[in-house]
């Protein structure tokens, strides 16, 4: 029997539990959903509509133009982790085409406004071989300067936020209506000023006012000058040539121009006005306060006739 006991190996029971594949830990974030945007107007719209129920992040550094900014890898990783990424569309932020983001979290806020986008004339394309593939011209990017398009984008932001937080739809809708009211009031005031400007010829320092010009039917001509740079002699010659057919008395800038530029323009009988596109977060105030300041500048330059 001893020997029988020694050969009691009939069943080998494995005591330890089966080896399990290590669970992939998924990052769980505390706090509200994160909404990233590619420019400040969209961040403003999202903040106005969502209030505190989401965390709105626009990570571009102060002072850079978000349209041409290329975020570093760490910032791209933040965009990847966001619950929602609001895109401007119309080719804004070309870096989007060169990074990897989760398609299911991207929202193109101007997708439904495609018919209203303005193609950029005079853009030089290229092709490979006489019959090969070719590139297409771009579209104008500052869609929010047309208040009607801005309202459309705000509604797209609302729709995206409701999909993210459906339980907050009622609050979102109330805040969207308030935002639309502010935008429409701004639009009416700009229309009043535009009526006073009428057909007067205007110059624009930079080709970023296409939607603004179209919305209010301005008679405008764009050059390609930078506010913080003194124009070259060639640029002054081009301006003089343009003035022969487009005799403007005002030049509208996206930022405070160089003092020497201002004085030289004044010598040519051209006044300077600053109308900030508000693509990035302002040093003070917000999108609406910036636009109201823009309005005030125009109203001051073109006061109601007595």
């Amino acid at each position, binding site marked *: 029997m001893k020997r*029988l006991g020694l050969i009691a190996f009939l069943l*080998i029971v494995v005591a330890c539990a089966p080896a399990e594949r*290590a669970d992939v830990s998924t990052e769980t974030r505390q706090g509200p959903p994160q909404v990233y945007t590619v420019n400040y107007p969209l961040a403003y719209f999202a903040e106005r509509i969502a209030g505190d129920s989401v965390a709105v992040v626009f990570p571009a550094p102060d002072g850079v133009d978000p349209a041409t900014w290329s975020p570093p890898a760490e910032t791209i990783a933040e965009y*990847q982790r966001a619950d929602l990424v609001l895109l401007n569309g119309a080719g804004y932020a070309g870096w989007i085409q*060169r990074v990897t983001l989760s*398609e299911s979290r991207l929202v193109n806020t101007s997708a439904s406004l495609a018919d209203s986008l303005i193609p950029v004339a005079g853009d030089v*394309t*290229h092709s490979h071989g*006489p019959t090969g593939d070719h590139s297409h011209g771009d579209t104008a990017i500052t869609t929010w300067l047309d208040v009607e398009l801005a309202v459309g984008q705000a509604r797209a932001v609302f729709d995206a936020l409701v999909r993210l937080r459906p339980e907050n739809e009622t609050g979102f809708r109330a805040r969207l209506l308030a935002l639309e009211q502010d935008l429409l009031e701004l639009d009416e005031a700009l229309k009043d000023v535009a009526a006073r400007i009428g057909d007067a010829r205007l110059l624009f320092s930079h080709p970023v006012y296409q939607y603004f010009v179209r919305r209010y039917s301005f008679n405008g001509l764009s050059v390609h000058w930078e506010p913080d740079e003194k124009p070259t002699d060639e640029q002054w010659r081009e301006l003089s040539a343009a003035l022969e057919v487009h005799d403007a008395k005002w030049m509208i800038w996206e930022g405070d121009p160089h003092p020497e530029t201002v004085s030289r323009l004044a010598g040519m009988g051209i006044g300077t006005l600053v109308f900030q596109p508000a693509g990035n977060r302002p040093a003070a105030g917000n999108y609406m306060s910036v636009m109201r300041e823009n309005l005030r500048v125009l109203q001051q330059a073109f006061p109601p006739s007595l």
Partner: protein
Amino acid sequence: MRDVLYLAWRYLVYHRLKTAILVTSITLIIYLPVGLNVVVEQSSQHLMARAEATPLLVGAKGSPLELALNSLYFSPEYPELIDYSEATTVADSGLADAIPLYARFRSRSQPIVGTSLDYFSFHDLGFASGRPMAVLGECVVGAAVAEALGVDTGDTVTSSPETVFDLAGVYPLRMKVSGVLEKAFTPDDEAIFVDVKTAWIIQGLGHGHQDLARAEAASGVLSRTDDNIIANASLVQYNEITEDNSDSFHFHGDLAGYPLTAVLVVPKDEKSGVILRGRYADENAGSQIIRPVTVINELLDTLLTIQQFIVAAVIIVGLATIATAALVFMLSLRLRQREIDTMLKIGGSRPRVASMLLAEVAIVLLLSSAFATAITLLTWRFGPAVIENIVLT
């Protein structure tokens, strides 16, 4: 009874070699069909797990098996291509999420899979080091790829040309490894993952080159008009995407028409999946939608049929083995006639002697059954690990 068992046991121990051969033979005959069934069952479960984890696949009309094998296991043969707009259509339907797949290119023997970030979260793939790809030209490698190629985060891998003699083809693209996945014991371990746009760059649909408007690129210009510059074939295109040249990379044409091998469809719920499948039921539809579970099930049915033939063969061999063992036993009885006569003469009754002989047979059968059971249990317990570490790698 104890004395009978004792004598039977002592006889078997004394003739240990004969006993060992008999026990081994009968153990194998019992274990082979059972163990084979366990291994096949576990392998099937492993294969089916991959298929079950993929709700639906959209691809070009054609072989569902080719579509499933390329999409699930990244087989070298890829199906007819579909447009990227198929993924957009699925996503815009609101019925499902769409994950694009472009599993066409290779880096040596490893498949390069163009996809989106959603692929990693869908398959619950974690990172042993690094991060997902962030910009074009970056890639994420599976654990087995990292081991085989000796690469880690920060190293590079290069795509292979589709044909060796394609002199006018696209130059291989050197890609930076941004992350290495944790071992998943799935075909993902063997793959290199890139953004689908990077896969299009590998194909040559997107590229980067000097700005043709600049003087330095004059040698690459064929002709120019006021609004278009035509490049010639000597224009050098970059074969690596770096921080310095990434802005130059672009695509020509509408991305909606760019190619995919499949779209991985994740329905919001069962009803949405049924509705979606109904939309592809039309015979005139340009693409098809398949349930990978159904396709792999049909494949496994075929394999299981082969298994049944093997089992039948083993059973026949087993019967022959048992017959041989019986013959050995009978011959053994003849050789032991003097021993049996001695037991009878010293007072053993015929029934008792017969009991002892039968006890020998019973002990051999019992030992064989026990060994076969033990080996089967070990197979069941360690089979998945063996399959994962040897069969699947």
